[in-house]
């Protein structure tokens, strides 16, 4: 199958001197659902940030969605990022925008019609149980609600690739299950999903590929039984 994510011998050393990733090589095919697990500080978020070109590798090559992130021009980054939906570990909601505006913003940048935005955003918010919070500002909602807004923003554009860095860390187990079920549903329609999680329960319930990272190295790469 066609690869949507390719890491070729990628290493990352932060300016502070921390070696976050060591010689990572990795393929994720179109349509896969990948869990990334590992202890705190292992380098999971660093890997995710690399996929978004928030960080660039110190060594090696990263290819995502057909873009070579190491050689791409700065002006092509926005177009590239629009092909991806991301849930950040620290949410990254804009505090001066309401929940609705935060989600709508991700659509506005893609140049779709206002009419479509007006229909799509409430639909997604409703899907994640946020309908009542549409007009609240991020600091006025609970941690779990904020996390779901971040998720809503990642889903709203129907991206080909969804990257989620612990999208259920602040959410109760029942809702977490529903959310992964939703992602599973989306995955079935062909969207590739990469999800970092600490919840072994979820990983066990959904039988997908699992990549384990420890101290910046891949220590586990187990395919799900669907493969």
């Amino acid at each position, binding site marked *: 199958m066609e690869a949507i994510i390719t890491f070729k011998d990628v290493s990352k050393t932060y300016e502070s001197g921390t070696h976050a990733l060591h010689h990572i090589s990795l393929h994720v095919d179109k349509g896969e659902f990948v869990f990334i697990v590992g202890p705190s500080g292992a380098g999971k978020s660093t890997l995710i940030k690399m996929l978004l070109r928030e960080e660039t590798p110190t060594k090696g090559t990263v290819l995502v969605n057909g873009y070579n992130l190491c050689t791409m021009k*700065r002006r092509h980054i926005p177009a590239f990022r629009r092909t991806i939906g991301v849930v950040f570990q620290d949410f990254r909601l804009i505090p001066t925008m309401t929940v609705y505006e935060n989600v709508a913003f991700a659509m*506005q940048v893609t140049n779709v019609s206002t009419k479509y935005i007006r229909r799509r955003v409430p639909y997604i918010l409703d899907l994640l149980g946020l309908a009542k919070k549409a007009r609240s500002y991020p600091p006025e909602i609970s941690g779990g609600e904020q996390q779901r807004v971040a998720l809503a923003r990642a889903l709203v554009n129907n991206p080909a690739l969804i990257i989620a860095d612990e999208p259920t860390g602040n959410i109760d187990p029942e809702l977490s299950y529903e959310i992964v079920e939703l992602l599973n549903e989306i995955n079935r329609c062909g969207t590739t999903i990469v999800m970092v999680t600490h919840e072994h329960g979820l990983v066990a319930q959904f039988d997908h590929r699992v990549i384990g990272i420890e101290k910046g190295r891949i220590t586990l790469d187990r395919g799900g039984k669907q493969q």
Partner: protein
Amino acid sequence: MSLGSVKYLIGEGARNIRANRQMSIASIGVLVACMLLIGAAVLFSLNADAVMGYIESQNDVVVFVVDEADEEEAEGLGETLSAIENVSSVRYISRSEALEGQMERLGNSAYLMDALREDNPLPATYYVKVKDLEFLADTVAKIQALDLVLEVNSPTDMAATMVGIKKAVNLGGTAIVAILGAVSILIVSNTIKLTIFNRRREISIMKYVGATDSFIRFPFLVEGVIIGLCSALLAFGLLWVGYYYLMDWMSAATSSWLQLAYQHLIRFEDIAYRMLGGFCGAGAAFGVAGALFFVGRYLKV
């Protein structure tokens, strides 16, 4: 960008002003303060220039006519004088008028000169006003070369002084406005920096969601231009009101000096359009500078 996007982005700019109320108010305060300073300096230097111009125009070149000249010849000289390029006006004082003037000037001690009435030693005189004191020496030389001219007394020292003062006023005014301008730019750009620094996280989030640089900049531009134009109008209004109060106060002043100055002050209406234009331009530049120069550094994520 589609029309929908542009509409959205303009709306965003307006919304941001409300969302960042504290910052908007602070920016407007700083901008108005700077514009007021510059506006006041411009008004002051234009007025000083106008008053100096008036004082300059009060200086006469004194031309003594030879005693031999009769009334007709003297008049002819007057016409010749008027024809000289740099001469703006000519006033004739006959010999007897000159003596009376002299006596008047002595005040109560005038009787001391009574003895002179019979044999008036004073010559007939032309008081000549020149257009531009800077070319006074030239003009005096031309007059001196004329027939019937006994003697030319020119206010060379006064002229040098006046030319000096006028140059100083011009130079000083320009310098003050330039310095205030430079200082204002420093202050305003620091304010813009702080305001945008405050929102660096917001900017980086937008980039991570896939916004292009111009998509992020445009609302900043709209926001800055709105804030700039509001400040321009506010500063213009305040300056207008302040100037009118000042004029009012001067017109009521008893000092003859202030009265004299008052009559030669320029009216606000005379420069209102240009000033409003300048303020609005500066205000709009505020928005452009913010969006183009200062947002840039936070876009590199």
